[in-house]
């Protein structure tokens, strides 16, 4: 037991010493690892930010149900309760005539003619229920409910999901689904590419030191005793690269969100990404370090196999 612990200690010590003595090779391997891990992290954060932007867009899309001025509060409350019970309803918002007018005026501040026309009349905007569906592709059950005779009788106008707006909703839904899939796919592809690049880099580093491995073999060193320091050394590459890439990306988003006038670049919401990092910094750091260590240690474990084989017959 004591001997095993002593060997384990030596493996770690040798790994660290080799890391320092082969600093040129270590820096080269870490540079490649840093770039690839940064790409993985960047694509992950970008995907999170895109998803958020898409969620914000879809949250703004709702079904507006216009009520008659003659509807009693009891009828309105019953209708609200029934709508809430529908399975595909995420949330509902009730705007009385005054609130609906205020919202209308706010939405049409740029169009003075429309605002003036409303002012002339005595509030023609009906009380409105805004329904946010869970899934925009499955609003048929809501539609069916709203055209039921007793429900339709309470409405002053048809709900605004029909016509061009429905087509627009469908297009947005379709686009968001594609963006989400592309985001996930890009993370998977970048991760695979990163693994291959890191594996090849470490394999090259170990290839340069294959003679060292063979000498250790000839001196009677066990497989674990030879491989251990290489695994520790490569794990250190991962530790430093993962830490550095997390800090760099964090700094970049933080800097961009505070210095750039715009809070977003296209669909990439920089402020959201910076906030996301603030809230998940330790988790991101731990994940990147773990990924780096696993990639480094795993790659060197596999890369040493061929030089540790014995010739049997």
């Amino acid at each position, binding site marked *: 037991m004591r001997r095993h612990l002593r060997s384990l200690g030596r493996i770690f010590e040798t790994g660290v010493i080799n890391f320092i*003595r082969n600093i040129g090779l270590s820096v080269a391997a870490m540079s490649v690892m840093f770039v690839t891990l940064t790409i993985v992290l960047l694509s992950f954060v970008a995907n999170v930010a895109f998803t958020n932007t898409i969620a914000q867009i879809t949250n703004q899309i709702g079904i507006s149900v216009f009520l008659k001025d003659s509807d009693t509060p009891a009828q309105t409350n019953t209708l609200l309760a029934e709508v809430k019970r529908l399975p595909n309803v995420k949330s509902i918002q009730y705007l009385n005539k005054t609130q609906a007018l205020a919202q209308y005026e706010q939405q049409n501040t740029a169009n003075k003619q429309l605002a003036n026309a409303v002012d002339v009349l005595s509030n023609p905007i009906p009380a409105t229920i805004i329904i946010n569906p869970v899934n925009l592709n499955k609003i048929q059950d809501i539609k069916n409910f709203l055209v039921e005779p007793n429900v339709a009788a309470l409405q002053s106008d048809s709900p605004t999901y029909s016509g061009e707006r429905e087509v627009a909703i469908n297009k947005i839904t379709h686009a968001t689904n594609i963006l989400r899939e592309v985001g996930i796919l890009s993370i998977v592809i970048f991760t695979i590419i990163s693994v291959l690049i890191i594996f090849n880099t470490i394999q090259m580093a170990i290839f340069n030191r294959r003679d060292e491995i063979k000498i250790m073999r*000839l*001196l009677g060193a066990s497989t674990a005793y030879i491989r251990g320091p290489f695994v520790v050394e490569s794990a250190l590459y991962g530790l430093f690269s993962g830490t550095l890439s997390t800090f760099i990306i964090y700094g970049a988003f933080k800097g961009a969100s505070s210095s750039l006038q715009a809070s977003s670049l296209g669909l990439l919401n920089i402020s959201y990404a910076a906030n996301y990092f603030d809230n998940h910094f330790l988790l991101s750091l731990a994940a990147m370090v773990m990924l780096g260590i696993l990639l480094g240690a795993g790659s060197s474990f596999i890369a040493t196999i061929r030089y540790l084989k014995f010739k049997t017959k």
Partner: protein
Amino acid sequence: MILLDRVTKKYSRSEGEALHRITLNVEPKEFVIVIGQSGAGKTTLLRLLTCEERPTSGKIIVGGIDYDKLKDKDIPMLRRKIGVVFQDFKLLPNKTVFENVAFALEVVGASKREIKQTVPKVLSIVNLKGKENSMPRELSGGESQRVAIARAVVRQPRILIADEPTGNLDPKHAWDVIKVLEKINRYGTTVLLTTHNQEIVNKLKRRVVTIQAGSITSDRTKAGYKS
């Protein structure tokens, strides 16, 4: 101590035999010189003893270990019992002289204290006192070979195999290395030395085994020809 019984080695089907039905018996504490021209099979013989290669046929027993029964996982244990000196030194390039010698003790799980006591002693035997912190690239050929010898003997093996240890050295350094090997043999270690330096063979006056084209053509003791 070392027994080879009708050992044949063939590297591939298309090539001829590197060794042909070699039979050799080396007694404990003996100093045996194996001579032969380049390509005669000397290095193959030593590679079989260190289990870098396996024989195509025949039996090898070293220090009571039957190689036929040796599994891959047991090879490191075997190598720990045999000291090997290579013509090209095979020093670990990223370790100092001290660390190179210490490595041989580390793999057998020696304590730090034991290493600190033993390594300087062995380095002084091979006249390398003061070179402990030098890196292999800073050493001359003779010094490098003496480090290799120190590393091979630090575990006090019962058998020392030296594969042309003087091959890359000038006559003065070559003779220094041979004197170290003789000293080690006097301490009771069996030494198997390969060389093609006739001067060393003549001066040493030890048992000489000659290999030609993969076969033993003569086996001569100090007293004369054995066979």
